[in-house]
């Protein structure tokens, strides 16, 4: 029994410190110049899935599509309590917009198998679009509930969810499976368990194992993979070859939106008039605003 959840997680550049150099000529992001972090809302999404597991049993898988180093966030998910992790990675997936991202994610989900819930963050702090969740749901042909604030109850394969709407909230009842995108304050993500950190800090993706064999000619990839799998330290790795994909729908090729131009936001350097912080200064200011018919 129990419910099977899949959580979509994304590694994002820490958008607190951005400069113009971070953007490449073609408008894509030079992520190597920015610290990469676990998108906060995705952590919240994972927590929601883990709470369902705590209360109802079942299991929780996490998946991310990204470059090989996105495995960092998958390890963090394992530290929190995820049962399995999947890295979806291939050069041909690079430069994807939300349409291409949701295509690959939905095909990977189909391969991973059946599920009751898919959880995602409402939005990622880099692209800020909030589109990947709904587009993945559409491609899987399942309903969605976005901007979720709380899981009210789960009974007989139906879930009640409280979601934000303009000026208030709604409680919706959905059958399963359903895709849910969560708001940042929905639940408070649990800290890492020390034991799990000790265990899973050595979990590795296929690319990371390949790296080990490159550095040591005595190691063979199949054997190594088998060893890691048996120790539950293998991070499932899915590449283009593992999925039946239409290349034309992946990565840059499958992305209808193109970044044509990027400007970093700079202050216009507008010359303002300095007003003295006293009666006279403020008096003249008020006179001006009266002349402009703003006051009076």
């Amino acid at each position, binding site marked *: 029994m129990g419910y099977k959840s899949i959580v979509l997680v994304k590694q994002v550049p820490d*958008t*607190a410190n*951005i400069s113009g150099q971070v953007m490449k000529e073609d*408008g894509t992001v030079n992520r190597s110049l920015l610290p990469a972090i676990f998108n906060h809302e995705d952590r919240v999404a994972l927590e929601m899935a883990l709470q369902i597991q705590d209360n109802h049993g079942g299991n929780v898988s996490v998946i991310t599509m990204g470059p090989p180093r996105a495995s960092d966030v998958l390890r963090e998910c394992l530290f929190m309590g995820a049962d399995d992790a999947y890295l979806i990675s291939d050069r041909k997936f690079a430069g994807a917009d939300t*349409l291409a991202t*949701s295509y690959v994610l939905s095909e990977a989900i189909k391969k991973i198998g059946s599920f009751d819930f898919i959880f995602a963050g409402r939005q990622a*702090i*880099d*692209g*800020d*679009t*909030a*589109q990947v969740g*709904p*587009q993945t749901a*559409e491609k899987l*042909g399942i*309903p*969605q*509930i*976005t*901007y979720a604030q709380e899981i009210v109850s789960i009974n007989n394969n139906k879930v009640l969810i409280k979601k934000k*709407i*303009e*000026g*208030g909230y*709604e*409680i*919706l*009842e*959905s*059958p399963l499976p*359903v895709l849910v995108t969560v708001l940042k304050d929905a639940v408070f993500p649990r800290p890492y368990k020390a034991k799990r950190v000790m265990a899973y800090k050595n979990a590795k993706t296929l690319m990371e194992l390949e790296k080990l064999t490159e550095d040591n000619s005595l190691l063979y990839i199949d054997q190594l993979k088998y060893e890691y799998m048996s120790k539950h330290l293998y991070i499932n790795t899915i590449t283009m070859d593992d999925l039946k994909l239409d290349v034309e729908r992946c990565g840059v090729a499958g992305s*209808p*939106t*193109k*970044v*044509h*131009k*990027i*400007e*970093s*936001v700079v*202050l216009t*350097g*507008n010359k*303002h008039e*300095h*007003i*003295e*912080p006293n*009666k006279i*200064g*403020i*008096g003249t*200011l*008020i006179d001006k*605003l009266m002349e402009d018919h*703003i*006051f009076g």
Partner: protein
Amino acid sequence: MVTRNNDVWVFIEQRGGKPADVSLELLSKGRKLAQQLNGRLKAIVIGFNAESIAKETFRYGASEVLLADHKELEHYRTMTYSRVLSELVDKYRPGVVLFGATITGRDLAPRIASFIKSGLTADCTDLQISDVKYLRNEYKNLLLQIRPAFGGNIIATIISPEVDVQMATVREGVMRLEPLEIPVNGKITLVPYQPSTLDSVIKIIEQHRQENKVNLKSAPIIVAGGYGLGTKENFKLVQELAATIGGEVAGSRAAVDAGFVTPDRQVGQTGVTVRPKLYIAIGISGAIQHRAGMQESNKIIAINSDPEAPIFGVAHYGIVGDAAQIIPTFINVFKQKLR
């Protein structure tokens, strides 16, 4: 190269039996885009007994309304609305489709874009029509979709050059509302509604909605306070000043987080976008995300103890000093002058 239909569609969201402001703002903008493209502006209304909503769009330039009117469509529901709209967009393939970047718009638009396999640009703050040279190809009359990303740190211009339907969600408050003196003598075309199995899988059990009582967007004067006020007690000075000069109270996110002011009064990227005649920013540093919501104001007064605060960069008048002293002076002088 794709051929593109010149029509501009706007999805009309509803609030308490009326079109949402953002939808009317989009019609106002859409009218200009359609003119430039030599196309027609169409409003898409989905609802129940929604004819008056449909007619309201003529005042903002729609020449035709596609109206799906049925009991089943009374409340916004993702599956129903997205199916109806996906089928319409797929059938007519308009060149541009616009949605408000509201909770509803951001729930609905991505499903449609996914269904028709087209590009969708999120959260635009400007839209333009222009010829574009991109990767050695020349494209005529593309929709430039201008949007902040990376937490507001960059402004990106997005294009969807190779698809026939260019879709975008647009932030509330950034386009000007421009009602026409004389409404267009438009027509309403009814779209028949045929229920489908997935439509009603999600049921609305409860709905609680309070129509926004504060209407910051239409206030001619806004007095906004920030974290620099220090305490809720001090923030009362902001309220007092607003009451004196006839303005609405607003705040920065830090002021909202500190509990000085309610979230519906937050100005900025994740709050409301405003462009009043006068915006007074007090104890607000002027972070990018705050400026994004107020820098189009007609006149801006910044009051801050730090002469280097970025808010002065967008201000027309700057007063350097302690808010706790400046606000009472302002109030007194104002009362003397305009008694």
